[in-house]
């Protein structure tokens, strides 16, 4: 299986704070790859690195064997037309209707006639179940609907790679079920390569072909969902089972209780 994206020995820091140290992973073409890990370890940062919005200090990120950090801006924008990203907030343009939002990338990057754009937009909205909401403004949508509208916009240009940033966060069970179904169906129907960044274990394990678990600036576990469930790392098991204490301690590092309570006397 050919890899669409390959991250090779990549290190990335924000200022003095290291986020990733020498990590390597690959995203196989046509598959759904899940990237999981505790909050705040830089999962969204990883998507931004793949999208070329951030540059690593060391190592390389290859898209179809072409280095993203070394691309010139013009080439990067060409490559980005083959990528898409579903943001956690949806990031819909608030001054446009749902229809206009989905039509936006088509109008920016194609010379399609308005009638063809209308047909494509309605098809995309139909695929996420929001054809009836085409004329609504983003402020009128529920959180789940906004995410589905953003998904319709993300697939407007039929990208090869789609990156989902916490697609299930803050969703009710019905909306979550809808999004899980959409990710799976779109991936199969359009032969997309999907990268799902999340910490919702059950949902993503049901649709992922391959899973990476990140923590402590590195990949701590990888494999198929079955391999991950049986992984022998305590940290992986703590994450999967949602245990409050373990290798990731419940208490934030601090002085001893005695020192804190009695030290000032």
């Amino acid at each position: 299986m050919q890899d669409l994206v390959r991250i090779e020995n990549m290190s990335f820091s924000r200022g003095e704070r290291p986020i990733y140290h020498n990590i390597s992973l690959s995203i196989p073409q046509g598959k759904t790859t899940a990237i999981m890990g505790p909050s705040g370890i830089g999962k969204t940062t990883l998507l931004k690195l793949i999208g070329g919005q951030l540059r690593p200090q060391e190592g390389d990120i290859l898209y179809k064997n072409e280095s993203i950090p070394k691309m010139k801006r013009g080439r990067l924008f060409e490559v980005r037309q083959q990528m898409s990203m579903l943001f956690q907030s949806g990031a819909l343009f608030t001054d446009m209707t749902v229809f206009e939002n989905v039509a936006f990338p088509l109008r920016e990057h194609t010379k399609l006639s308005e009638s063809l754009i209308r047909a494509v937009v309605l098809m995309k909205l139909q695929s996420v179940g929001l054809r009836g909401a085409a004329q609504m403004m983003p402020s009128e949508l529920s959180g789940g609907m906004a995410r589905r509208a953003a998904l319709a916009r993300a697939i407007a240009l039929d990208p090869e790679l789609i990156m989902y940033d916490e697609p299930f966060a803050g969703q009710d069970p019905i909306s979550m079920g809808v999004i899980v179904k959409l990710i799976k169906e779109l991936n199969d129907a359009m032969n997309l390569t999907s990268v799902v960044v999340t910490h919702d274990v059950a949902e993503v394990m049901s649709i992922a072909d391959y899973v990476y678990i990140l923590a402590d600036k590195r990949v701590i576990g990888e494999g198929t969902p079955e391999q991950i469930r049986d992984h022998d790392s305590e940290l992986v098991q703590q994450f999967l089972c949602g245990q409050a204490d373990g290798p990731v301690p419940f208490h934030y590092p601090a002085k001893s209780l005695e020192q804190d309570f009695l030290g000032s006397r």
Partner: protein
Amino acid sequence: MEWFAGIGRHSLGKLAAIGRALFVLTGALVAKPSLKHVPLTIKQIYVVGVQSLAIIIVSGAFIGMVLALQAYTVLVDYGAEESLGPMVALSLLRELGPVVTALLFAGRAGSALTAEIGLMKATEQLTSLEMMAVDPLRRIIAPRLWAGIISMPLLALIFSAIGILGGQAVGVDWLGVDAGSYWSVMQAAVDFDDDVMNGVIKSVVFAFVVTWIAVFKGYDSIPTSEGISQATTQTVVYASLAVLGLDFILTALMFGTH
């Protein structure tokens, strides 16, 4: 020593901000103009220009009226009330029109531009544009920058025209200055190139600086409610100070040797 290092850090921070501001400006202005973006600029001219008309007209009228009233009380002592027309017109065209319009524009449209762009950043709309291979500097910043540069000189001219009419309402209709002398002495005293065009040039410079500060502060804001609030305040403060400072320099260059 720590104090000295602090000055160094602060200076480096300011230099970096100037670099980022120049990056935003060149990204917005140097990029190849696209016909697709003309409707966006027209929409922004409506938002920053047409929607600022009310405050400009009301302020222009009151400033013209106050100017006429103040000038009349001085001029009448010297029997020179026929000079009221040029006094009002020159004050407005050379100074008050461009300067007050720029200050009002910074408060009304500049702060709104900063808040809008800052909120677009906070809600990841700018990032999503980047990911859709659309340059936010061209799609978001450039139309707003051009709209400011086009709108503000027109607003300043409207401000001056309304102010002159306000001056007439007080000077001629209320205080009894002869209408013929109000207009004819004004016509004789006001030079198109020296007065009207210099005012327009000032206004274009103010428009450029105020809109640049507004869009940059929004684009560079920290994407939190506190960060956007801070950026909006900075837009009004920096733009107002820049206008007043530049006004002195431009006035010295244009009229200083007369």
